[in-house]
């Protein structure tokens, strides 16, 4: 063995050690920043800080989707909409399951390493079931928000809790259902509870200690910037008006935000105002409900905001995932934020300043008709008893969209032909009690006909296309122009995944999991998983093999190409 070959052997050994160290290394902030460069892993809720739910993996292609087959399944025990997005780190999958468990399993076989169970609290109050949408990872630690409004840090190898921090008061209706976002040395979360008169906020916690570092209230107090958007009650009003409306103004934050490291801004979608449907008792625009807020990641200070639905009376939460994309807009590069809102409009905002560039309906919209130059909608409230499009659950909702830098298209799960007859009633705030204030009726074609169920369904679609139908819409990211549409008979709550081989994966309430050509919308492959899909698919690689994972009903189903 010559000196050169000995040196070469040492180098190979060193590289092997480095690679193996890398495989078992912690998920530092540097890895989160460059998550796109290690597509074998799925390190954040939406795949990366830009929240594109897009992967560089290309082993599965439009040509070979016909060879997809089920690799393994994992079954949960607690029924209900399983909304989580798993994380995958170096061959280990981490996911949450109802009510507040964390499971670590082998991403190749589905066999479980450990389960952490956060005990349900007796005083927790949630509007819509024991939902949890996933985890954040930083270093060797996983972070989960809980239904009783705590943030829990869990050791990724042992499954043991490291600390638990109380984020808010559970008995007042606060809860955490989103996947936290890890930025630098902080874990950022928001609170749910928009149906209980909470005062919403986004807060950052020190990843090591669990101590709160900053908090941004989505409802400003009187005297603070935006506080005057909660107007004083008129002296002569005959309708009930709440002089303390801001104290229980809602503004929940229950879907994970995004982050632009160059601007050091973190973006969060804010939920509905409270009470949901009676806007008369809270005059004013009601900032920052139904808005996106851009916060300094170090301090939580508000850099800008844009409000999609001022003085909302439709429950048009703006809790969609903020999708960040560097696009070409009118011939010039643009740092954009693209957004398909529950209120039925597609938006392009300039993400450094929040400047409004495009607003355009992607489904039928009749609660507004035009935008002014600053993007304020001109509202066209429908007469009592008349339907409003989109209906209460929106033209889309919290379901993850996808942006493919390869096609330049923005893909959204949409509800079409869906309307509600809205009505508000006065409601007095009482801690922990429902604060909806609504007398809404679904708009159905025949009196007494079934309406689209809000969150779940059985195996028979008896509301049919007459009440609403679903679609994947592919929009030009710069203009919102519809490029193609994949129509579904039933509505869809499924998120969307795209890959660099121009594949699109999505599910729906019917229980089909399907692969489409991301350029054309052509169906390439489908399988019937037998229960509704209400989460966003992911893809990852383990031992050289690409997998695609989705959840249908109680089953986590993982697919790969036949050997």
């Amino acid at each position: 063995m010559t000196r050169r070959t000995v040196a070469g052997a040492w180098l190979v050994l060193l590289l092997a050690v480095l690679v193996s160290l890398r495989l078992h290394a912690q998920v530092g902030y540097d890895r989160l920043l460059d998550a796109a460069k290690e597509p074998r892993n799925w390190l954040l809720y939406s795949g990366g800080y830009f929240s594109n739910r897009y992967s560089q993996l290309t082993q599965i292609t439009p040509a070979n989707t016909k060879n997809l087959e089920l690799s393994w399944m994992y079954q949960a025990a607690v029924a209900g909409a399983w909304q989580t997005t798993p994380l995958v780190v170096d061959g280990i999958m981490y996911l949450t399951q109802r009510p507040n468990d964390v499971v670590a399993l082998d991403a190749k076989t589905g066999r479980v390493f450990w389960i952490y169970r956060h005990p349900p609290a007796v005083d927790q109050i949630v509007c819509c079931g024991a939902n949890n949408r996933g985890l954040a990872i930083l270093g060797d630690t996983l972070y989960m928000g809980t239904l009783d409004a705590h943030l829990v840090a869990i050791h990724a190898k042992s499954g043991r809790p490291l600390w638990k921090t109380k984020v808010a008061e559970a008995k007042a209706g606060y809860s955490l259902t989103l996947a936290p976002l890890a930025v630098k040395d902080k874990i950022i979360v928001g609170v749910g509870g928009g149906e209980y008169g909470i005062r919403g906020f986004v807060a950052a916690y020190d990843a090591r200690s669990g101590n709160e570092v900053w908090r941004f209230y989505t409802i400003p107090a009187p005297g603070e910037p935006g506080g005057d958007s909660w107007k004083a009650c008129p002296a002569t009003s005959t309708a009930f008006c709440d002089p303390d409306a801001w104290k229980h103004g809602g503004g929940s934050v229950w879907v994970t935000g995004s982050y632009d490291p160059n601007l050091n801004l973190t973006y969060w979608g804010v939920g509905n105002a409270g009470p949901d449907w009676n806007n008369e008792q809270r005059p004013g625009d009601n900032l920052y409900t139904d808005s996106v807020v851009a916060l300094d990641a170090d301090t939580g200070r508000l850099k800008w905001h844009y409000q999609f639905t001022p003085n909302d009376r439709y429950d048009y939460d703006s809790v969609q995932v903020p999708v960040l994309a560097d696009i070409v807009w009118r011939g010039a590069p643009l740092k954009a934020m693209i957004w398909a809102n529950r209120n039925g409009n597609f938006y392009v905002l300039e993400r450094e300043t929040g400047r409004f560039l495009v607003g355009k309906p992607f489904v039928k919209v009749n609660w507004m008709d035009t935008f002014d130059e600053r993007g304020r909608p001109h509202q066209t409230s429908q007469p009592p008893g008349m339907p409003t499009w989109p209906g209460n659950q929106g033209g889309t909702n919290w379901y993850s969209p996808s942006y493919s830098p390869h096609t330049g298209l923005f893909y959204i799960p949409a509800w079409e032909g869906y309307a509600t007859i809205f009505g508000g009633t006065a409601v007095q705030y009482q801690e922990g009690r429902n604060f909806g204030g609504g007398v809404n009726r679904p708009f159905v074609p025949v009196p007494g006909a079934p309406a689209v169920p809000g969150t779940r369904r059985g195996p028979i679609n008896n509301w049919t296309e007459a009440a609403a139908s679903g679609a994947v819409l592919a929009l030009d990211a710069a203009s919102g122009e519809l490029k193609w549409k994949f129509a579904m008979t039933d509505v869809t709550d499924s998120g969307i995944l795209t890959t660099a081989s121009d594949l699109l994966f999505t599910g729906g309430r019917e229980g089909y999991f399907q692969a489409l050509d991301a350029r054309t919308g052509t169906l390439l492959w489908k399988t019937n998983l037998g229960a509704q899909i209400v989460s966003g698919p992911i893809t990852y690689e383990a031992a050289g093999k690409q997998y695609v994972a989705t959840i249908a009903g109680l089953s986590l189903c993982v697919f790969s190409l036949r050997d």
Partner: protein
Amino acid sequence: MAAQIPGAAHPGEYAPADIAYGARLYDAQCTTCHGANGDGVGGVDLRSGKFRTAVTDQDLVRVITNGIQGTGMLAFKLDTAEMTGVVAYLRNMNTFDRGSMTPGDAARGRITFEGKGGCLRCHRVGAQGALVAPDLSDIGAIRSPASLQRSLTDPTSQMMPINRPVRAVTRDGTVINGRRLNEDTYTVQLLDDQERLVALTKADLREYTILTTSPMPAQKNMPPGELADLLAYLLSLKGR
């Protein structure tokens, strides 16, 4: 994320047949305490349209279903049609003209239904009749009186979308007509006109049409008395 509130208030849109049906139920079950004029309980005037513990129709449903603890207000177990009727009546007690009550005699209605009406040629009640049209065994519990009345004279207006007739033509030209039972993006399940359960894959079809017109003949020339009897019979069908 707030879920839809089902079956909420619908001010000013109560159908006469619902109100009439509700009046009958009120007379049978409520007058003992509340009296014929709705003022039998001290401090409660049902005709005023203002209720101490209920603002919306949903509130009324809740109070009737659960009762009010610590008072004489009992819990009542009513099916959907009955509840629709009682709420409609409570909302219209002040103006309701008892002379307009629609349902007639159920026994006479049954004779018409099984006899000259020819309803069993398509519909089924219990073990009798055909499967081509929807089974009516519990129709009096699941549809409101107003809807049943209109379904006799204007069937298309009351046809549930899931029951819409479908017509499919397969690649080889076979025509399949039937009543839809279920449908998704790729398939449709139906009961065909030979009373067979059929599942079709849309990709295998040359043509697939969902019709929005009901095949049921409208009873436009039936005397009002017979219609009222038929309605009464349909309302008596509560399933088992």
